[in-house]
């Protein structure tokens, strides 16, 4: 979805919310997957979330990663600090597009 990526490229996390039924559409799309309305609005979310599970990647540069539930949506992102455990409250610290134009999300403890 172009609008989502445009916001993301500026470091802003906005997701589409249906104007008609208020469903959060995630992953983002131009059509509501509940009522099929095209009346959607790019909206801010509370950046605080809960870490569901985490791991460590040794592919390329070593990275801690985690699955986070944030305002009812789930995202896999980089964990910028160690010591976080499942259930930890985290916040979306940074987001954007990397050099390959792929989305990235970075979480830290809240």
């Amino acid at each position: 979805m172009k609008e989502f990526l445009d916001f993301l490229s500026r470091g802003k996390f906005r997701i589409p919310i249906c104007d008609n039924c208020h469903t959060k559409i995630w992953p983002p799309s131009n059509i509501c997957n509940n009522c099929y309305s095209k009346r959607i609005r790019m909206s801010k979310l509370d950046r605080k979330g809960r870490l569901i599970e985490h791991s460590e990647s040794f592919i390329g540069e070593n990275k801690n990663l985690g699955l986070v539930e944030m305002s009812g949506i789930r995202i896999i992102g980089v964990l910028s600090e160690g010591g976080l455990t499942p259930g930890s409250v985290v916040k979306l610290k940074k987001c954007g597009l990397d050099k390959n134009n792929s989305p990235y999300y970075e979480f830290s403890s809240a």
Partner: protein
Amino acid sequence: MSKIAIIDQSTSEFTRDTSLSVQELACDPCKRILRNCKDSSMKIDAVILSTTSDIQYGSTILSEYLGIKPIISQRLDNLCNSGTNAIVSAYSLIKSGLCKTALVVGADIRETKGSQLLWDISRGSFTLPVYWAALFAKVHMRRYGTTEEQMASVAVKNRKNAYLNRNALFRKKVSVDDVMNSKKLVEPIKMLDCSYICNGASAILLSNEEEAKKYTDRPVWIEGIGSSTEAASFSNVSSELSCVQSTKKASNMAFSMTNIEREQIDVTELHDAFTIMEILAYEDLGFCQKGEGGKFVSQNNIVINPRGGLIGTGHPLGATGVAQTVEICEQLKGLAGKRQVNDCKSGLVHNMSAAGSSSLVLILS
């Protein structure tokens, strides 16, 4: 109502390198089947090509390569779960009466675009399947005490089975230590915990009951089909990472269609894309209790992945579900050679796509 049979099956050798196109690869397992068809004066009414590769009207090109003019020609893609979906489409075409026979061919090359899911931006930069596998593993270890050694034992078993399969890519036995000491990719997944995307093709021929009787005295009957599609994104696939919902639903649906009980299954080919996914499948298929999958690796009641599974045989994405079905058919017909399971009457195929976004279960006898 007429039953649907699998009346012939064939698979090619799975390889790391090939100079062939997907359609050319797909021809290989079809040759022997089509020679048998000529001998039986059997016409192929449908050709369904299962592949995740980015090719245009591949089933029609394949039909032309094979010199046949089917009524229906379709290409099907549902990631790693394409093969059994193609089988169900063929089953439906025959069951409807539109076709009497259908050739299902699965084929893929190592460079297929199906190996990464770029649409799902909820995964951020973690697009490789190994990341979701690691998250499933971590949850199972934390909740149920599943160990890395138990996961390694899955790879040891499947590599040992693949040793007896001349079409398998990995015919070298490995030990638990080998797996544990292999390169760590994403905690706790190591290199030898993973299947390897490769080149390969497999084919099966389905027919109605009447045609089956003309062709063979050893048909394999499709007794149960179960399928479930949960979501395309990892974020919506399951609220629980300790199980694969689509597999649970598909399994229950397949067993509700037949009188065959889980205890009667003699042989199973299940979708071990990663060792942890085999452990989860034991539980989600209902072969053991939730949380007992790690211990179930060492059981001897059901023979699991006798051809070597995806880990031992290799994983040509669009061909995998068909190759799994070929193995179960050969087992049920007593044609599995050194891998033959004794007194084999009922078998199960479990095929799955990315993180359990969809699963399909076939019960055969």
